[in-house]
C-alpha cells in the first residue's frame, strides 16, 4: 500500500488530505497518470513529488510502504 498526501488546491479538489493506494510498485510518473485519470487531477502536471519527505523525479520508484506527497508550487515566507 502506498500513502499519498495532498495539499493546498489538490486537497480541496479531491476533498481529502490523503489517499491509500493498493500498489506494490510504480514509478512516480505512472502514479501521477493513474491519479490524473481517476480524479481528473490535471494539476499533477505542474507539481513536484516527494517520496518519504525527499524530493523525487518522475522516473523514481515508489514501493508499498512509501509515503508520496505531491508538492504544488510552494508559497511560504
Amino acid at each position, binding site marked *: 500500500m502506498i500513502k499519498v498526501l495532498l*495539499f493546498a488546491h489538490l486537497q480541496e479538489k479531491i476533498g481529502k488530505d490523503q489517499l491509500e493506494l493498493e500498489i506494490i510498485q510504480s514509478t512516480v510518473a505512472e502514479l501521477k497518470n493513474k491519479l490524473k485519470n481517476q480524479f481528473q487531477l490535471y494539476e499533477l502536471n505542474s*507539481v513536484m513529488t516527494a517520496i518519504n*519527505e525527499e*524530493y523525487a523525479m518522475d522516473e523514481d520508484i515508489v514501493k508499498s510502504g512509501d509515503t508520496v506527497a505531491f508538492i*504544488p508550487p510552494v508559497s*511560504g*515566507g
Partner: protein
Amino acid sequence: MGESLYEIVNKPIQVESLVSKVERREAGAITTFIGTVREWTKGKRTIYLEYQAYVPMAVKMLAKIGDEIGERWPDTKVAITHRIGRLDISDIAVVIAVSSPHRKAAYEANEYAIERIKQIVPIWKKEHWEHGETWIGDQLENTPYPEGEPNLKDVKI
C-alpha cells in the same frame, strides 16, 4: 539545550526567542528577517491568510537550508520558524535569525535563507481577498516556477 533551530508552529512567533537561539559569545552580528502579512498586494486587499505545510518535510527542508548556509558561511548559526494556520494582517509568518562573528555573512546568509524557503519548503499560502480566495502558487498571483514547471535543480543540491 533541546530547543529546535527549525520549527513549524501554529502560534505567534516571538522574535526574541529566535534571536536567543542563535546568540553566541563569539558572534557580534545577528540579523533577523521577519515576514509579515501585508494588507495590499498590487492593489488587492488581503483580509487574512491561511498557511498550510507538509510539516515533517518542511522542518527537514528548513534544516537543509541551514546545512547549505553552514557550508557557504561556515561561522554562522541559523534558526528559522514558520507559522501556519490563520494569520491576520501584520501577523508574523516567518522569522529567520542568523548570527555570525561579522555582519556581512549575517546579511548574506539571511537573505539566502528566505530565497531558499520560497523555493523548496513545502508551505502553501491561501489568500483570502476582499472578494474570493486563492491558493498562491497555482494562480497568476504568483509565479514561483518561471518556466511553468517545478525546477528540480532548485531542490536537488
